[in-house]
Structure formats: C-alpha cells, structure tokens
C-alpha cells in the first residue's frame, strides 16, 4: 500500500525528519489561507499516487496567496493520468543548495534492506542510476541489528556531505530507517532530501510503501487508504481479497494463482488474442469469491469473451463451478465462456459446468485457442 506525499511527511515528522512547513488544502480558499499563514512564496503539490505529476502540471510555485488560490483552482479541477486531484499540499518554498537522494528498500536477492544514497537527487535519479551507476551508493542493513551509525556516516562520506552536516544527515538516515521499521515499509524514500541555503536538511518529497502482508499491524493507515486513484473494479476486487488489474483487451480471465494467471495471459497473446485483465482468485476460493470475481470481470464492458482457467490444488473445481453457475444464473452475460477445470474435484466440477452447457477445454493451449477464436468473432 502506498502513502501519499502528505502522509509520508506526517511519518517523517513523527520520526524527527524535518519537512517544509505547510498543510493540506481541499479547496482554492484553503490554499489561499495556508499561503497567507506561511508568508512568502509557496508550492502547491497535487496529492495523487501517480508518478510524473510535475510534468502533468500537478506542481506549481506561486508568489502570493491570491496566485495560490488561482492556481489551486486549476490543479484541483485537473485529472492526472485519469485521476482527479482532490487535495493539494501547500508548502513554503525552500531555497535549495543541493538535492540528495536517500532511500530504503528491500534487496530480494540478498534478503536485506538497502540504504541507497546519491549526491544527485531529484526526479532524474533513475536516469542517473542507469547512466552513472558509480554515483549511487548502497549499504546493506543487517535486519537483526538495524542500520548502524557508522554505516550512515560512511554513506555521508561517500556522497560527500560536508562534515559539519554529518550529524544532521546521520540522524535523518537513522530516523528514516526507524520509520521504515515502525511502518513495516518495503520502501521509504526522501527525494529530494535538500540542503537549504541555511545548511539545514529538509525532506522536500517523500514516498513510503507498506508491506500489504503487515497491514494488520497498521489499521490506522488502512483506514486512511486513498482509493481515488484506483479503478472501481480494483477496489471491489480488494474487498473480496482478489488480485485484479484491468488491461485493455477483450478476453476476461479468471485464474487461480498469479503465475498461472500470467501464463494464461501470455498464451492468449501468443494465440493472437488480447487479455482484458489479470485476475487471481488465490488458493482455496469459495463459490462466493468466484462469483464476485466473475461479476468484476463482467462489469468491464470491453470484455467479449471469458476464459476461466482453474488448476485445482487447494482450490476445488466443484466450488469454482458452483460459483460460475450461480453468477450465470444471476446475470445473463450473453457472451461466450471457455472453461477449463483440472485438478482437485475436476470431475465434479465439469459435471456442474456441463449441465450449464458451457464450452470446456482440457489443456490450457486448447482453452486459449478456443477463447481467442471466440473473441475474434463479431459480437452478436
């Protein structure tokens, strides 16, 4: 789960990492009021979870409260990558001497957290990482010990933080690690971490991502989850514990297991079709869950054919078949279905399906070919 910039900055403040003064505004009037409080130039920043909001006009520097109101009205009316901007962060403008990158994330391979820093932070950090990898410094954190002071200090040396600022930098690195731990984060990033002309470190922007598996420890964050950036189908899917991602094709896919779901999409493509979505019903899904999954697929008006591919293990094919039949009794989708059920209780499952007179398949390749063929037929 991703936190907004303003949420990340609340976390920073709780962990003694300095941020610019500022507050959240939901209306142009708010923005004006906050700009008045802050005196002097302010920055308006659209609070959306998409990247690239700056290029999309979601960040504006303004000189006066009136200008703040005016620009806020423009940004709040805007959509960024299809997502309406509902809130702005209004912050004092900062005099920047240097922009640094500082981030923590998981190195899956080594099984440890990495603290990453570069003397050249900002929006182009990925480009720097690609073109000048020697400008990126990393240090592995022993998960049993945590980040050590000497590690932060060594990093400060390598990215050539001036000596008189080491203590400030170390405190920020150690506090960021503490925040990362406290929140069960898999990402905690300050970019840019700026050195102001007054020689103070300030976290100008921040991103925090929380481990979904640890959300049970963070109910307060879950309650504040922002779903404005998600498709309705995705919100509905999460409600049922389904992993669903909408794509642009016309073959709706319902599969158990993420790997098999991806392989199903792959084979559809290889056979000349276009998957409409990724949908993993997980292991051991009930008929109700299957029904919910199918409703979500069918709510996508682009879907013209449905391919159901179940390899039963924990999941029982008869349970899935019941879910399918139940949904088809409720909704009459009027589009063709191809159903493949293999594994646990496949015979029972097939029987239920056969009664419903649906197209079935034995192998995945066969199922994909049939679905693609059906998807290419003109819609009746």
């Amino acid at each position, binding site marked *: 789960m991703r936190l907004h910039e303003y949420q990340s900055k609340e976390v920073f403040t709780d962990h003694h990492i300095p941020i610019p003064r500022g507050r959240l505004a939901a209306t142009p009037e708010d923005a004006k009021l906050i700009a008045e409080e802050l005196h002097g130039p302010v920055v308006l920043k659209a609070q959306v*979870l998409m990247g690239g909001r700056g290029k999309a006009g979601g960040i504006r520097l303004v000189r006066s409260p009136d200008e703040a109101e005016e620009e806020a009205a423009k940004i709040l009316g805007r959509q960024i990558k299809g997502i309406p901007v509902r809130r702005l962060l209004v912050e004092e403008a900062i005099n920047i001497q240097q922009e640094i990158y500082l*981030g*923590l*994330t*998981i*190195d*899956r*391979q080594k*099984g*440890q*957290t*990495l603290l*990453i820093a570069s003397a050249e932070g900002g929006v182009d*950090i*990925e480009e720097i*990482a*690609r073109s000048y990898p020697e400008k*990126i410094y990393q240090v592995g954190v022993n*998960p*049993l010990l945590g980040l050590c002071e000497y590690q932060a200090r060594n990093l400060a040396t390598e990215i050539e933080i001036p000596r008189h600022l080491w203590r400030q930098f170390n405190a920020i690195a150690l506090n960021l690690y503490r925040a990362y*731990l406290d929140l*069960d984060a*898999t*990402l905690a*990033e300050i*970019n840019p971490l700026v050195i102001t002309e007054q020689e103070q470190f300030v976290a100008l922007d921040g*991103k925090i*991502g929380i*481990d979904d*598996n*640890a959300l049970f*420890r963070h109910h307060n964050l879950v309650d504040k989850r922002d779903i404005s950036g998600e498709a309705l189908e995705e919100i509905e899917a999460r409600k049922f514990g389904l992993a669903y*991602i909408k*794509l642009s094709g016309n073959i709706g896919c319902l*599969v*158990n*297991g993420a*790997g*098999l779901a*991806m*392989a199903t*999409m*792959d*084979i*559809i493509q290889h056979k000349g079709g276009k998957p409409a979505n*990724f949908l993993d019903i997980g*292991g*051991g899904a009930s008929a109700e869950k299957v029904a919910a999954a199918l409703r979500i697929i069918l709510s996508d008006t682009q879907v013209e054919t449905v391919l159901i591919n179940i*390899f*039963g*293990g*924990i*999941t029982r094919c008869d349970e899935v078949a019941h879910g399918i039949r139940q949904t088809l009794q409720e909704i009459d989708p009027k589009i063709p279905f191809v159903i493949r059920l*293999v*594994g*646990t209780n496949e015979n029972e499952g097939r029987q239920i399906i056969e009664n419903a007179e649906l197209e079935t398949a034995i*192998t*995945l*390749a066969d199922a*994909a070919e049939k679905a693609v063929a059906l998807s290419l037929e003109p819609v009746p």
Partner: protein
Amino acid sequence: MSILIDSETRLIVQGITGHEGSFHTQQMLDYGTNLVAGVTPGKGGEWVLDGKVPVFDSVRTAVEVTGANTSIIFVPARFASDAILEAADAGIRLIVCITEGIPVKEMLQVKHILKSQDVILIGPNSPGIITPPHSKVGIIPGDITRPGNVGVISRSGTLTYEVVYALKQAGIGTSTCVGIGGDAIIGTHFIEILSHFEGDSQTDKIVMIGEIGGRDEENAAAYIANQMTKPVIGFIAGQVAPDNQRMGHAGAIIEGGVGTAEKKINALHSAGVQIARYPDEIPSLLIG
C-alpha cells in the same frame, strides 16, 4: 534418487489440526509420505486422521519422540515466522513453508537467523516438493505427476501444476518438483535447487519456471552458463504483464535493467536455456 526428500525423510506437520493442514496431511499420507507427527500447540496428546498421527505441543517434543528431520508449515501467516524459527531451533533440517502472507520484515529476520544454521527453508508461499510416486511434502496434487527424469523448479503454485501435468500428459515423468515460493523473500533460490539437480543421478533434464520481478532468473542464467552440464528448459510467466505498479525509484535503482520477462528470457537464452513460449510447449522442447 531424488532431491531434498527421500527415504530418510521423517516429516512433521506444523499446524496439522487446521483446515488446510489436516486436508493436506491426509493427502500426503495417502501419497505415501513418511509422515511421523503433527504439531499444534495446545493439542499435544491427541491423535488425528483416524488416530494415525500423534500431535505434539512443540516441534522439540515431536523431534525428540519421533526423530523427525523435516517439517511442513501450514500455520497462519501471523504465526508462521515463529513456526519456522521453532522448527530450526528444534533441529529440523528441511523446512517447507506453505503459508503465504508472512510480513517481509519477519522473513528478513528469519532468513538471517537461518543463515548461520545448517537448515534448508523452502518457501514461504511455496506449493512444496514432490518426488513421484511415493513422497511429497507439500500441496502439489499427487495424481498430476509421474516418476521420471525431469527435475522441475518453479516460483509459482498452480503454474507448477500446469507444467508437471503437461509433462505427464506427454508421457514425461518428474524426478523431483520443487516450488521455491512466490514471495519477495524466500529461503532457497533457483541456484541452490539447480545445483541439487545437477548432482542428482535420477535427473537428466531440468525445467525452470520463472516469472517477472526480482533477478532470480538472471542469477540462475549465470549459474547455468557456468556450472550446469544438464540441459535446462525455461518458461517465464508475465510476458504480457502490464507495467509493474512500481512505487518510488529505489526498486528501479537496485534492480537496474532486470526484472522484465524479456530481460529474463534473454538472459536465460544466452545461457543456453531453451525457452518455451507457453507451458504446453515445454514437453516438445524436452523431447526435441
């Protein structure tokens, strides 16, 4: 021969009295696995599955009484990292963790603790291990495999079933099939299993099933190029996956250019691995 599980295996089931634990324990018994006990704290002294399997309160007691050396874990995510540590502490040498949803923070700690111990962890979020026709430690359905000379390694669950089933349909048997698990932090990676297969006399060829994300496949490619003499057939799921909904830059910085199906396929291809475009192609590549 086979890898990881063999005639010496003495298996306990942690979380044997739970819904999944009890179902799959029955499946493993039916398949012929040498299952010696179960562990559920608070239920020690009971006998489950028609009185065939004794239950203990702790792994330590189970090991002391039954001489168990292998454990499979079905306990809920909230308790699973503790269960892994308990098994390792009690002297279990192979731990297969089926549970999914263990927080990353806990797995990082577990992995570091296990590093200094002589123990193999498969998973978490793994479908387990099967050596047809008589031993399985996991949830892979027994009847979709047949004995043979192809070793299978996979990061996925049901996709693994798909592959071994496709092999069986084509008359090809499996020496051992290992699901290493789909989580970000897992105990054992492709490389370790490849090396087991390289040394296994029963295994002549290997099928490796990867997916997008991480760089496990890239590392495996380098290992295959340098260390493996047996042929490897690969499949990478997620070739048409949408852009990973990545957050922040950190992931991109550390993963560099790796992680996409294309990069993985290229890396494996360069290492001499034949790549199937979809699972049903695998049998023909093995035969051909």
